[in-house]
């Protein structure tokens, strides 16, 4: 290695996989000191900081036909699909909450490399995809030595940085059900600036009856706990009710009640609690208008 400046990961051996089964057998042969490499936008910084020091990387980037967006009732996203590809996809935009999420992750450069499968497999509590996939009821398709499994996202992410993946098992696809009619969702995160993780985020998916009363609501907070947190009290407030300003205020209060943020460099617990309440109101408003057929642009907020 040259004498230039720069941070270097611990040395590791490189293994290029040409198929998923080959990647799985490589990883199982190499054992616990081996890791899969997807886009690398979380793993590479962790390796450069020596917080992760794998002895082997099994590269998934050169496996053909792992990046795709297919729409046939379900929206199927190949695990290696980059965030930027989802953000640019007309098929994905039919489920607006997916577009909100993909287009707001970090910055253009990171979205060009980072993958949805890598993000979910890492299960970083501050990641953007978990609350969105929970709100939409997505399933994760995995492949391992014992074949394929389909796992509901709520049973896939178990804890911070912990998923239901077995050793040498990987994600191959994420499937999102197409929302029924009169359904709308929105995802908003509050960030200090684009490349950093969010300080708080909220995902809302709302389905209305014909008379525009609420048929179903799914509301998840991101970032503030070890995993995304479902706000059942807020959902109960909405179900069967007309969605009006009283409900909006009730949802804000329920979110503030349930949020258990910790004070850190991203802000005090009190600040984050208020932010989560405000984000919930904004996301609910956007979801409600979308459920009524309005076109609403939603974007992450910066403070």
């Amino acid at each position: 290695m040259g004498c230039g400046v720069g941070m270097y990961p611990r040395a590791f051996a490189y293994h290029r996989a040409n198929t998923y089964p080959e990647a799985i057998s490589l990883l199982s042969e190499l054992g616990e000191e081996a890791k899969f490499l997807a886009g690398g936008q979380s793993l590479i910084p962790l390796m450069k900081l020596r917080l992760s020091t794998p002895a082997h990387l099994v590269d998934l980037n050169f496996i053909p036909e792992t990046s795709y967006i297919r729409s046939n009732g379900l929206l199927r996203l190949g695990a290696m699909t980059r965030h930027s590809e989802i953000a640019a996809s007309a098929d994905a935009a039919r489920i607006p909450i997916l577009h909100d999420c993909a287009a707001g992750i970090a910055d253009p450069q990171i979205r060009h490399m980072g993958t949805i499968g890598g993000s979910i497999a890492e299960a970083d509590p501050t990641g953007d995809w978990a609350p969105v996939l929970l709100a939409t009821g997505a399933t994760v398709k995995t492949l391992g030595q014992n074949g394929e499994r389909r796992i509901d996202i709520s049973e896939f992410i178990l804890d911070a940085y912990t998923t239901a993946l077995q050793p040498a098992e990987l994600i191959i696809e994420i499937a999102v059900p197409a929302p029924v009619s009169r359904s709308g969702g929105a995802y908003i995160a509050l960030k200090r600036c684009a490349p950093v993780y969010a300080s708080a985020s909220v995902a809302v998916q709302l389905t209305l009856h014909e008379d525009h009363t609420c048929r179903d609501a799914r509301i998840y907070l991101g970032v503030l706990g070890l995993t995304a947190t479902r706000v059942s009290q807020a959902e109960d407030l909405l179900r069967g009710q007309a969605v009006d300003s009283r409900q909006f205020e009730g949802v804000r209060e329920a979110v503030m009640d349930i949020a258990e943020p910790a004070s850190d460099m991203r802000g005090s617990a009190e600040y984050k609690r208020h932010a989560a309440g405000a984000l919930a109101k904004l996301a609910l408003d956007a979801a409600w208008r979308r459920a009524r057929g309005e076109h609403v642009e939603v974007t992450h907020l910066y403070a």
Partner: protein
Amino acid sequence: MPEEIARVRVNLKINGKQYSREVEPRTLLVQLLREELSLTGTHIGCDTSYCGACTVLLNSKSVKSCTVFAFQANDGEILTVEGLAKDGQLHPVQQAFSDCHGFQCGYCTPGFLMSTLQLLEEHPHPTEWEIRKGIAGNTCRCTGYQNIFKAIEAAAENYKAAPSDRS
């Protein structure tokens, strides 16, 4: 831990020229560019995927080359700041940054140029919001961004004037 780590061959086209090198697997794309190939126009700023000084285009998509392993760019095409000027003529985006003084110390400029190029490919007539989103992954600690904004707006005008100059 293997005692001897096999080097990995990386073939890639940089600014139109084909290169082939054997590198340690942990070599980052920016280190390949700067240390192996002496293409030092691409800068290392934060080295933690934040500042964007190391931005290059990989297969026409902007990436932070401090956060991409060299092997991930195998068989790819790279455009760095060295590939912008042609025959002694600044690229329209470079000319706009020069005309508008879109920099002070200049350290972040190569990254801003590459992100601007990416932005204008996607949005030839960017709105203020699209400019903000387009350079959200690049940090400048000198200017306060006003002149960078002006430069990007001027670059969009230059593009309109000379669309055939696109790299």
